[in-house]
């Protein structure tokens, strides 16, 4: 007891049971709950007090034996504390005392009574706290009902289960922590099975790795085909050497923290504003046209898109998953437009591409006439590159529809050159 008194912080209640043979032959079971707690609303305000309540119940079959609420004190300190507790209980809630009286009458269900006592000791202590504490109490009650007295730890079942696993061998195969960041992305290029050098095929993935390269961040690109392997459920994601992951939400912020300051172009306020506008242009208009080309041009969908995204599955899964994915794309497109109108989508994409061509100018290597790429370059290049490297479909039904977006880009000589230059400079090596 003495060492308990010195503790100030709150800790799990320790419940002890011990039987004691009374002079009249009956056996009294004593229950002692020891709990250290800081009490706020009482005469002993903010004084760390160790509480000890001793409730006794009888296990004898002789019903005449009355419960004595408190046994004769084992130690004098204990008695003092019991007095304190009783005072506090009376101050706090009358219901508490009522329940305690209930315990004094012996009823048929002894265990339930004890549960209540346990519960009420807890609730009286934590009455000011809200639901989480209550739910903890509930949990404890449940635990009690399952495991019986003394909580879960003492129950034979628990002790039995705690032995498992019997032996713990070291993991045969731990995944080595990456030395540098790894970008998992749809990255196997357009032809299925094509080996490195890889290029991302999904536009926003493309902008990821392009953006990383432009910012001078070293990373390794690993092809992945299963979006659910990412913590956010979406590819791409970045696995860092410290074991954490960066998904699309925190990507921008992470790059800003880790980038090589000299790698990218400095944009002044107006240029930054314009970059935001043009990125938004590419991500809405060109993105829609690209999605349409990939998923809704039948020639393209059957020949390449389906194979690329789901070709690694069995053929039946490939068919089912690709149709599911297509309907998902359709839904996502319909969020921002009332119908998927091919003509309008391509008209807008053409005007967007024209706007980009005008903004780029004829002679510039990068946007805004800089000598280094900026975030706008990353986005625009990845879209242009994906569009220009789409495999060409030659068949009669298609009649050039699947290549329309690429031909729109090719009309603008400077955009075509721009894309070629960046590819050669940053990726082809």
């Amino acid at each position, binding site marked *: 007891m003495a060492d308990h008194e010195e503790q100030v912080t709150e800790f799990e209640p320790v419940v002890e049971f011990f039987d004691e043979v009374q002079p009249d032959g009956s056996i009294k079971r004593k229950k002692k709950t020891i709990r250290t707690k800081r009490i706020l609303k009482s005469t002993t305000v903010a004084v760390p007090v160790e509480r000890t309540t001793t409730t006794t119940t009888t296990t004898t079959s002789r019903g005449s034996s009355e419960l004595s609420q408190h046994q004769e004190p084992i130690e004098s300190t204990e008695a003092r504390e019991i007095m304190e507790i009783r005072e506090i209980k009376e101050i706090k809630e009358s219901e508490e005392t009522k329940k305690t009286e209930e315990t004094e009458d012996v009823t048929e269900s002894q265990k339930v009574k004890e549960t209540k006592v346990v519960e009420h000791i807890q609730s009286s202590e934590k009455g000011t706290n809200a639901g989480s504490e209550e739910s903890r109490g509930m949990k404890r009650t449940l635990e009690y009902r399952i495991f019986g007295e003394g909580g879960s730890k003492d129950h034979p079942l628990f002790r039995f289960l705690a032995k498992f696993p019997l032996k713990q061998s070291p993991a045969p195969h731990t995944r080595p922590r990456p030395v540098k960041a790894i970008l998992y992305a749809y990255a196997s290029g357009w032809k299925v099975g094509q080996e490195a050098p890889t290029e991302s095929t999904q536009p926003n993935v493309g902008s990821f790795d392009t953006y990383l390269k432009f910012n001078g961040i070293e990373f390794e690109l690993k092809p992945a085909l299963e979006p659910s392997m990412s913590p956010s459920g979406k590819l791409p994601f970045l696995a860092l050497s410290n074991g954490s992951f960066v998904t699309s939400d925190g990507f921008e912020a992470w790059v800003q923290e880790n980038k090589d300051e000299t790698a990218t172009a400095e944009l002044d*306020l107006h240029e930054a*504003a314009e970059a935001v*506008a043009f990125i938004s242009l590419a991500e*809405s208009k060109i993105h829609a046209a690209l999605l349409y080309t990939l998923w809704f041009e039948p020639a393209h969908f059957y020949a390449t898109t389906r194979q690329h995204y789901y070709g690694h599955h069995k053929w039946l899964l490939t068919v089912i998953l690709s149709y599911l994915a297509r309907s998902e794309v359709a839904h996502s497109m319909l*969020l921002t437009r009332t*119908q998927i109108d091919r*003509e309008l989508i391509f008209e807008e994409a053409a005007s967007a591409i024209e706007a980009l061509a005008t*903004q780029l100018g004829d002679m510039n290597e990068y946007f805004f006439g800089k000598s280094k790429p900026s975030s706008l370059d990353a986005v625009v290049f990845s879209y242009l590159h994906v569009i220009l490297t789409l495999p060409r479909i030659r068949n009669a039904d298609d009649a050039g529809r699947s290549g329309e977006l690429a031909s729109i880009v090719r009309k603008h000589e400077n955009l075509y050159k721009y894309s070629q230059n960046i590819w050669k400079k940053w990726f082809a090596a």
Partner: protein
Amino acid sequence: MVSELYIYGGAYGLPSIDAQCLAMISYLSIVSHQEYTIVECNDPAVSPSGTTTKTTRQLPMLHDGNNWIAGTNRIISYLSKTGYNADEDLSAEDLAKSVAYSALADESLADAILFSWFADTENFFGATRKAYSNLFSFPSRYILPTQMRKSAVRRVQKYGHSVTIDSEKSTNEENTRIYDLARDCYRVLDRKLGDKDFFFGLKPTSLDAKVFAYLAVQLYPEIPNPQFQLILINQFPRLVAYCDRCREEFFANPPDITLPSEPSPFFTNPISAPREWFRNTFFFHSTTSSSRYVSSGNEKPKKTKEDREFDLKRIYAITFGVVAMATYAIVNGLVAIGNEEEEDEREEHKRSSSE
């Protein structure tokens, strides 16, 4: 040009509740003063594109001569082809910038409005639902606002997981992303505007029409939870001044609000003109060939082919249904053909013979 613009009706002291419609009104007031009339039709389902393809329900819609054009971007490109171009003075670079900024407005500003009006529970039940249900007629009044909310919430869900249609509590604390996004967008526009009267100098352009429309529906309505308004007023006073200026400029002489000039095939209702309505609803394709809409010229033959297939399928389905019903009736003896009299006769015969 005497054309008609079909829009959602006004609310909150603005000519129209819908940003797209407001943009269209602004654009028309830039390019042509008093040469058009406004029809408040309020029901996107009646637009002609809505009757031909099932998914399109779109206002504003322009009726010019024999042409019906739906959708802001389509109308603007149609008008600029027919000589009402607000952007003709712009250089190529400015035009490119205009395209980019209007894309930004279409994305971010539109999302901000959808979030503020629909995803924010307090605003939706406190203001938006009421405003919209004042516009609609009886049955759709109780259905459409909720439907609009559903689609709006689906669109803005990408900004936070706590944006759901069922969330009762206010969504302000958890969804800082949309406010950051809106703030970024306002900042970009604010920088672009600078100290100029309009985005590209002294004359308003199509970009002004759009941006003003989106800002106006964010700024002027009185709503219970005006987070975006506070952002605008406290941090971007220049944009607020710009909005006031544009409001003066564009809505100074509002055009007349009229009824449709010709009894449009799309605007008949079953009570006032039951015969017309019946004909238009069930024999739509034969009566409206004269005033076909032009949104996509080369898709027309394809559409009619699809329609023909659809009609054929409908006939098949109806025939099948009737035959199946008749078969069921006969098999189960609900209807007996021809045998009844004979049986009666037989019974009578039996009876008479037994007697």
